[in-house]
């Protein structure tokens, strides 16, 4: 018989735990859910848009009743649990219903704090916590005129904004001298207040409420200084208190909340607790992102996997008031010894402040332009050393917003029909709509549902910004440790290290050692593992064609109609009349419908049928060509200019050096595609400063440049060093290439890799340490012995014939 799991509290934290549990162990429990409210689980952080009339209740339901039914969950709504009988392991609901449990999950949430002043229990005084409160506010707005919101925090301001949109005359009363003092510094709070005043809100700062006035309904407030204000509605939004009454009654240890350990267990090991009712390591949380992290951990233990730990959260905040962009995270008020970076532009109403200590971000406050909030927050969480880009950090992440988006950084200001993802034609409206109607919280969710940023990824920053401005604090930032894929908890770095340190030499060994969750991996992890194994054990690992993307398995680029394209290698871009004649003959013989000269100075033959590939390769191979690897995560091309042989400006033999570099590096598998170029003089006609490895010849030698990219995100190379001989160029190139091959994550180009690990680190390994450089170069050459076997020739001679020949029905 299945064990019984009872969830008390049908809100976001509890139901999220169930969702995570169902993913891990769908058959483990017979599940019963009790909720005090009459609704299925809804998105509480969307209450402000509902109040503002931007959303309906139906639109913020996260799990409709059908979901509970489909997952075999028994749901009781409008029937709160009033007692836990721990001795007999059962819960008793208000209706008298009793349900037994083997495991109990408490997610009772929190209650708004009502200030204990005379009259605070009068009708017309409410909190801002649930759908009933929102209904009450909308109702009050129909008859009343004056509303007072007590509390100038996040929730209070959202309530005030909503009431004002509903036509009320709203005054915000705040005890402190600045708004949102827990999230903002003085400057940002001042800008916010000004913007809200322009929208028509009124503020009474440093004002303490002494009494709620009225006989049978609220009529106004009296303050500590004796002054009074009229009110038809009073909203108390001065904070929340964990709802731990039920737990306390059951004798569970509570302080400010229900106390839990790192596995989300209360003092009764059968009883777990998550969400706002919880106190963990002395902290309570009122934002959604930490609750989701807790949900994952609780689900992991309920599923008996027993490995996850919750270690607390750093939180960030966004205000969901349409038209106001505001972000804060971490410790944003500087202390002694901190440094403050500030960008302030009163004309654009923009303010950005970063609090930095030892070149690491401690906190961030932004007003007006919050585009880079998620980036700063990630740097903060990961403790990234910002010294390399400190001088430009306030201008934002340089690669955001390009790819046609120009300098548009105010996501909130974009119109709904603005195209965000140019690859898949997804507009801002599509994304916002999907986030709201489907209840999406992560970048991966948005990608799966809308395809935005799922192709080239250049709009990822914009999509993240839209996500965070739409769901506010519910947005789940990228975890600092990102698993390779859904098949594992391990990151790329951990996998790379395990393969090396534990001498894992085939994929099965990796799956077993790192406890992969799926028997065969998936289309994301298998190509990565195949690469890592190949890069680490070039002489021992046997390449697995079934773990390669089709282009690398068939050694051609698959095109949209299922045909392939063929690019013969032409070293350094040089060719002879007989080379061109051979290519022309092949094209005519196999009826190639289109030829094109590529950006990398090669010739691309399009529209080749798969079964013709080996035949064509045989002809090309006979004419002396090898594969151009234009289809692979591999060394692609060395682009060259004319050089000193012909050009009147040339300082060195750039074509000759290009040929040598290509002879050294061709055939090498890489984490991603890898391009080189050699320019004969600083005019740089071969565009070497946007390549993964670029050489710019000068009269006195060779400048070596690394980490450039001319594609999705244009990035100019960093200068690695200057060397004097061609031999040095080859050695440094081999060493850099090998370092990238060994340490970068699969599908990470050199540009983001260099930014991630830092130029200083690469210089240290390659420039400062000759022994290290020579060892890297040596390892590169060992790998090349295996790699420089032409795959086209092998297949022309019959290797992997099954890949290219269709089967016939024989009987």
């Amino acid at each position, binding site marked *: 018989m299945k064990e019984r799991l009872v969830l008390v509290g049908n809100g976001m934290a509890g139901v999220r735990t169930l969702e995570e549990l169902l993913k891990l162990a769908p058959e483990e429990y017979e599940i019963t859910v009790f909720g005090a409210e009459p609704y299925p689980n809804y998105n509480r952080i969307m209450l402000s848009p509902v109040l503002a009339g931007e959303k309906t209740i139906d639109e913020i339901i996260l799990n409709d009743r059908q979901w509970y039914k489909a997952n075999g969950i028994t749901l009781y709504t409008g029937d709160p649990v009033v007692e836990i009988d721990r001795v007999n392991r059962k819960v008793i609901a208000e209706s008298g219903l009793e349900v037994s449990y083997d495991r109990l999950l408490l997610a009772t949430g929190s209650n708004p704090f009502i200030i204990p002043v005379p009259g605070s229990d009068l009708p017309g005084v409410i909190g801002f916590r649930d759908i009933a409160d929102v209904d009450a506010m909308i109702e009050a707005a129909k008859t009343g005129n004056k509303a007072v919101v007590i509390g100038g925090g996040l929730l209070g301001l959202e309530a005030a904004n909503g009431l004002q949109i509903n036509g009320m005359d709203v005054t915000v009363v705040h005890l402190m001298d600045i708004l949102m003092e827990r999230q903002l510094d003085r400057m940002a709070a001042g800008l916010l207040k000004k913007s809200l005043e322009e929208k028509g809100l009124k503020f009474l700062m440093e004002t303490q409420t002494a009494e709620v006035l009225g006989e049978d309904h609220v009529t106004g407030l009296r303050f500590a200084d004796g002054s009074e204000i009229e009110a038809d509605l009073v909203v108390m939004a001065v904070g929340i208190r964990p709802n731990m009454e039920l737990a306390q009654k059951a004798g569970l240890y509570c302080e400010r909340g229900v106390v839990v350990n790192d596995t989300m267990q209360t003092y009764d090991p059968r009883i777990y607790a998550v969400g706002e009712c919880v106190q963990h390591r002395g902290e309570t949380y009122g934002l959604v992102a930490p609750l989701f992290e807790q949900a994952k951990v609780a689900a992991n233990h309920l599923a008996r996997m027993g490995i996850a730990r919750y270690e607390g959260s750093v939180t960030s905040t966004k205000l969901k008031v349409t038209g106001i962009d505001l972000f804060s995270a971490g410790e944003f008020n500087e202390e002694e010894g901190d440094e403050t970076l500030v960008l302030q532009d009163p004309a654009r109403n923009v303010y950005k402040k970063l609090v930095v200590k030892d070149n690491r971000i401690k906190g961030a406050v932004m007003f007006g332009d919050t585009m880079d909030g998620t980036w700063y927050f990630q740097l903060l969480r990961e403790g990234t050393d910002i010294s390399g880009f400190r001088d430009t950090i306030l201008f934002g992440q340089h690669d955001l917003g390009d790819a046609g988006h120009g300098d548009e950084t105010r996501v909130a200001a974009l119109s709904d029909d603005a195209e965000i993802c140019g690859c898949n034609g997804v507009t801002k409206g599509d994304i916002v709509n999907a986030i709201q109607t489907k209840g999406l919280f992560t970048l991966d969710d948005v990608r799966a549902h809308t395809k935005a940023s799922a192709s080239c990824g250049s709009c990822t920053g914009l999509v993240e910004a839209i996500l965070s401005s739409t769901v506010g604090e519910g947005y789940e930032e990228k975890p600092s440790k990102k698993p390779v894929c859904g098949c594992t908890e391990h990151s790329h770095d951990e996998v790379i290290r395990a393969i090396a340190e534990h001498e894992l030499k085939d994929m099965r060994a990796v799956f077993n050692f790192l406890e992969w969750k799926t028997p065969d991996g998936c*289309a994301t992890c298998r190509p990565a593992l195949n690469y890592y194994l190949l890069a680490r054990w070039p002489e021992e690992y046997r390449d697995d064609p079934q773990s390669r993307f089709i282009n690398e398995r068939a050694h051609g680029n698959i095109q949209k109609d299922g045909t392939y394209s063929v690019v013969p290698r032409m070293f350094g871009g040089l060719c002879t009349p007989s080379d061109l004649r051979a290519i022309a003959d092949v094209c005519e013989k196999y009826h190639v419908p289109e030829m094109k000269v590529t950006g990398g100075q090669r010739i691309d033959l399009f529209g080749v049928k798969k079964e013709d590939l080996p035949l064509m390769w045989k002809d090309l191979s006979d004419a002396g060509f090898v594969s151009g690897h234009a289809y692979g995560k591999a060394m692609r091309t060395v682009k060259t200019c004319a050089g000193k042989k012909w050009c009147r400006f040339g300082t060195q033999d750039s074509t000759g050096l290009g040929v040598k570099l290509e002879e050294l590096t061709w055939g090498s598998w890489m984490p991603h595609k890898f391009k080189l170029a050699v320019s004969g003089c600083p005019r740089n006609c071969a565009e070497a400063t946007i390549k993964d490895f670029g050489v710019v010849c000068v009269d006195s030698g060779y400048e070596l440049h690394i980490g450039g990219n001319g594609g999705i995100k244009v990035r100019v190379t960093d200068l690695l060093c200057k060397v004097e001989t061609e031999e040095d160029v080859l050695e440094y190139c081999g060493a850099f290439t090998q370092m990238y091959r060994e340490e970068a994550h699969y599908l990470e180009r050199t540009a983001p890799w260099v930014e991630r690990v830092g130029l200083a680190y690469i210089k240290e390994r390659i420039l400062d340490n000759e022994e290290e450089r020579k060892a890297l170069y040596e390892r590169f050459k060992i790998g090349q012995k295996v790699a420089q076997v032409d795959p086209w020739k092998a297949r022309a001679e019959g290797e992997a014939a*099954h890949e290219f020949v269709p089967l016939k029905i024989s009987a």
Partner: protein
Amino acid sequence: MSDWKKIAPLEDIPRLGSRVVEIEDGSIAVFRTSDDQVFAVRDACPHKNGPLSQGIVAGHTVTCPLHNWKIDLESGEALGPDEGCTNTFAAKVEDGMVYIQLS
């Protein structure tokens, strides 16, 4: 019931791979999974007709090489948030030989 058509010995299809069988009005992709079961589906992704036979196989699914839709080999249905379905054909292994049913 229509006839079982003999295709090829099982070892002619790579494990976690596929072969294409050409029929009059198109192609069928015959997959072999890691547990040595075989599945036959029309060689066209419900999204944009990508050749599923060229995709990466894992469990009883294949990922289309064109835009990464994941297709369930048993039902032919797209998985995850994507929606669509490709035709499936009955397939079996008997005495080491693969058979499929065309209708």
